Every structure is written in structure tokens, then in C-alpha cells.
């Protein structure tokens, strides 16, 4: 059982380029999340999806978009990357949306925008 996989592991990207970070879970969890982790700021929620076909904005959604075509996949797209989007990105999932559920995290994608 893989849990949550993310790809790529790391990426260096030129500013202005488009980039999609991939996230796949095999736990059949309803809810999925994207966070960015920056030094001294902890994790901040970018976007979330409570179920396939629905998405919502988190704390820092600007410059990012997501889609949830099925239960397993939740890609995060940077339409035109900027240096301030340099960060470590974590995908997570949970079996429910009440807020009580444990969130399971992927290993992260380290993105550098030059």
C-alpha cells in the first residue's frame, strides 16, 4: 500500500512556466488537500477537495488551481510560476471532512522557481 504519492520529488522551474504537481492516493479517501510549507510559517492550505468533482480555496490559493476528476488524483497547477512559489508542497488526504479525521501526507515536492 503506497498511501499518497507525489511527483516529481523536486523540480527547478523558470519563472513564467506552467507546472503541474501530481498527487495520487490509494486509500479511497474522500477529501484531499494541498499545502505549501515555508520556513517559519508552517503549512498553509492552498486548495482542498471534499469529494471528487468539488474543490475549494484555502488560505493561499492565488496563483494555483486544482481539479478533482476522480477520487484518487488531485493535481495542483501553477499556471505561470513566480519565485514566491518556491516552496515544499505537500498533498494530504483524509477519510471524511468533519475535521476530526487524521490527514495523511505525501512525501512532498520541493519546487524552486528561478
Amino acid at each position: 500500500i503506497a498511501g499518497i504519492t507525489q511527483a516529481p520529488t523536486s523540480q527547478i522551474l523558470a519563472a513564467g512556466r506552467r507546472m503541474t504537481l501530481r498527487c495520487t492516493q490509494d486509500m479511497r479517501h474522500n477529501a484531499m488537500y494541498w499545502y505549501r510549507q515555508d520556513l517559519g510559517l508552517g503549512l498553509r492550505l492552498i486548495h482542498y477537495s471534499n469529494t471528487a468533482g468539488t474543490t475549494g480555496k484555502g488560505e493561499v490559493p492565488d496563483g494555483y488551481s486544482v481539479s478533482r476528476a476522480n477520487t484518487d488524483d488531485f493535481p495542483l497547477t501553477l499556471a505561470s510560476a513566480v519565485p514566491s512559489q518556491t516552496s515544499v508542497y505537500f498533498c494530504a488526504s483524509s477519510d471524511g471532512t468533519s475535521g476530526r479525521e487524521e490527514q495523511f501526507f505525501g512525501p512532498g515536492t520541493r519546487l524552486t522557481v528561478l
Partner: protein
Amino acid sequence: AQSVTQPDIHITVSEGASLELRCNYSYGATPYLFWYVQSPGQGLQLLLKYFSGDTLVQGIKGFEAEFKRSQSSFNLRKPSVHWSDAAEYFCAAGSARQLTFGSGTQLTVLP
């Protein structure tokens, strides 16, 4: 606005010593409370969680946390730290749809 504060950016303890990591939250009502641990290069792993009831919560790896409503705190403790506990620790507070993380405390364990 909802917030979670971890006042200690970095803590160093000797192996075998006791540990307490501080966490304070600001929420409209008592939120669900969590502690996660992140080892270098890894994702986050849940240590323990509190929803209601007994204010002392036991978690994995010998950790426990105590909820104190009067202090809006949820401090993490371990009586005897092991070298493998060196990691970054995150407190989080949540409700439906929204989990707010603190900025983290980096724990160094000296031999």
C-alpha cells in the same frame, strides 16, 4: 482569525531528558487539536489528537499532550526523549474543512 502559535522555534534536549513543546491556539470555539511530527525529508505523521473528554491524550511513540481550556494550550510532552525523536513538530487546530498549523518546533537531541 484562527491561529496556532508555537513559541519555541528550536529546542535542544539531551537523550533521556524530558520534553515539553508548547502550543497555544486562538479559535472561536474549542477546535479539534493535533500534533504531527515531520522527520527530515518526509511528510507529516500524526502523533495524537484531541476532540473532547479526557484532557490528557496519549499518542504514539510515548508522547502525550494535555489540553488546557483556560490557557488555550495543547502542550506535547514526553518523559524520556530518544535520539530518534529529533524532528520537527507541528501543532494544528481544526474544524470542518480547515486545519491551521503552527510554525513548528525543531527538536535536536544531544547524545
